[in-house]
């Protein structure tokens, strides 16, 4: 593939980029800068006070409970990424291979699940997982005592909700990179003497890596911001970062604190992505070249 070699001073290019640039500036950069400025203010009695000091930041870095929640958020997000990848891989693989004929149906189903209001789905889970809910009802039918599981209102339920809501991202990204794999590469592995399992681990999995990484990054970033799942399904007793920020902004009406915590979460996200990028760059090296005239 040839790179576009256009000068940044090309007026046509500037004109073409201008609308997106303006939008980004107006709706992303400016609010971010405002958030940063806000974090240097104070609050008294539900009122914002323009103090221009580091009080909020020293509060953020001296109070353990913010970091308890941040730590929990990162841990939950990491776990969610792992589960989404582990569950997404076989589903994507099945869609790309065995269930080729049902592929469209499955895609439509997933898209529907995707488009259904998150609030609705989350409440559906509440009804499903409750002590007296559908899941326990089904267990009773097969002989378990009533209320055999007590999943609702705990980190487990939060995780179920997160994985449920975010799994489509990994399924789709992994699926897209799997269907891009040249069928001949799979045949070549069979031809060289590989079993189906071996072929999956030697060829399919390594070549699906771009999709796995993309899905993992998406899920991680979205996980950092989950709000409904810990609040509704998790029962609010193990809050995550988004809930902490909401509490600060809304319940405590402490905008500077909320702003500072927001920046902390953005920072955590950026550092994690930076580390991920370092790892990925090393491991993906070869595949970047894949499309570029590699094959005769």
């Amino acid at each position, binding site marked *: 593939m040839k790179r576009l070699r256009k000068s940044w001073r090309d007026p046509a290019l500037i004109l073409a980029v201008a609308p997106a640039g303006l939008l980004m500036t107006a709706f992303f950069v400016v609010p971010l800068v405002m958030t940063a400025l806000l974090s240097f203010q104070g609050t008294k009695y539900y009122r914002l006070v323009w103090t221009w000091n580091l009080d909020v930041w020293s509060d953020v870095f001296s109070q353990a409970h913010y970091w308890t929640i941040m730590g929990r958020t990162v841990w939950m997000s990491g776990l969610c990424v792992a589960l989404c990848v582990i569950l997404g891989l076989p589903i994507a693989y099945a869609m790309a291979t065995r269930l080729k004929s049902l592929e469209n149906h499955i895609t439509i189903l997933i898209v529907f699940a995707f488009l259904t209001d998150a609030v609705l789905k989350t409440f559906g889970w509440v009804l499903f997982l409750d002590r007296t809910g559908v899941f326990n009802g089904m267990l009773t039918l097969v002989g378990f005592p009533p209320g055999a599981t007590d999943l609702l209102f705990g980190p487990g339920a939060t995780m179920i909700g997160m994985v449920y809501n975010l799994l489509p991202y990994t399924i789709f990204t992994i699926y897209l990179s799997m269907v891009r794999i040249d069928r001949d590469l799979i045949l070549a592995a069979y031809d060289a003497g590989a079993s189906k399992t071996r072929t999956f681990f030697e060829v399919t999995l390594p070549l699906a890596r771009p999709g796995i990484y993309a899905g993992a990054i998406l899920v991680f970033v979205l996980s950092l911001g989950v709000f409904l799942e810990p609040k509704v399904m998790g029962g609010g*007793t193990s809050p995550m970062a988004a809930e902490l920020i909401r509490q600060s902004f809304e319940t405590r009406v402490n905008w500077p604190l909320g702003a500072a915590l927001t920046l902390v979460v953005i920072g955590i996200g950026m550092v994690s992505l930076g580390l991920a990028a370092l790892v990925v760059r090393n491991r993906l090296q070869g595949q970047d070249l894949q499309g570029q005239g590699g094959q005769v």
Partner: protein
Amino acid sequence: MTKEIKTPNRLGPNPMIGQGLSRRDLLKSAGAVAALGAGLATGLVPARAKAASSLNFMCWEGYNGADIIVPFEKANDCTVSFDLIADSPGGFAKLAAGGYRDFDVVATDSPWVARMGPADLCDFIDQGEFQAEYDSFYDQFKAPFTPLEYEGKATGLPTRWGWVGPTVNTKFDKLETWSSYAPCFDPAYKDKICVLDWGDWPIMPMALYAGINPYKELDKAELEEIRKVLRALFKNTRAVVGDLSVAQKGLLDGSFRALIGGGTYCTSALRKDGHKEIMSIVPEPKNGLNQGIIWMEAAGLIKGSDNLDLAKKLVKRLVSPEVAVNLAWTEATCNLVPSKAAEDLFSAEQKDVLQMDYMWHAWDNSQFHDVAPNIDEMLEIWQQELAAAR
């Protein structure tokens, strides 16, 4: 008073800054455009047909019902625009930040109406002018009604009220069990308590149970006591719930034995649906300290209205018996009203749903809700203890 989730279907971060541009803003800019364009093209006027006058009304959802507003608009040939409040401090902050220039009338939680006095945001209520309205109230709300007064002047008129206390299901628990908050800390109730995530609402009753009046200035030791009582509460808490329907569902099926931090606000809709076993009560006074809390909403006039007479008419309408019934009986919640005159308009069934036979008992055993001086510290403690809960 902060009530983040006013209706069961509203869940999610509520934007602090109102609902975008107010209609007055729009009309203003339309006017400006028209003025600009006039030189170029005569006849370029805003397409919107303008009524003789207009009012801007900042209020909780429910006050903007068509039954309330449309007859008023017709009778007075005016338009009323709303800005719905997502949370009361946010609404107040908006007014205080200069937004008061855009509004004529506000209907919000009473502490925030009262605070418009010292903040110089309100047009005080002339008791003479509103004598007929005061006369229609129960004695407890008649002028001078101190909770809404500032320096002897009324900042607004009460519109709706209720009490904060444990909400229980009498199918599972006797009411007497909850004549104190003690079961919240009883190991027998472990994992059976639902705390409502409604800002300061759940904190205040717990402070009262700890023997501290949270509406006074608190010292460090008292704040530590509040920390302890919250920590103990979270040990027994199954869920901290922001959404009314989730809380109500748990209460009905018995997985929650009590809702803490709510009260009539979460009871009445269930009673309306026939769940008469659900009741909100006020615990008995403990060591001379009333354990119940009375919350109240009020309507007030905002300083500098272009149309003060019309604004007064709207306030009068909001406290009229006809509207009072309307405000008491909404889709999502049922609440009490200060209007004695409205009492005859309720059916016996409605009175039962509203627990009207209990209301003065609750009133007598309660504190008036206000903005607590140490609310910042208390909310921080809440946040810290919640973070450490599991």
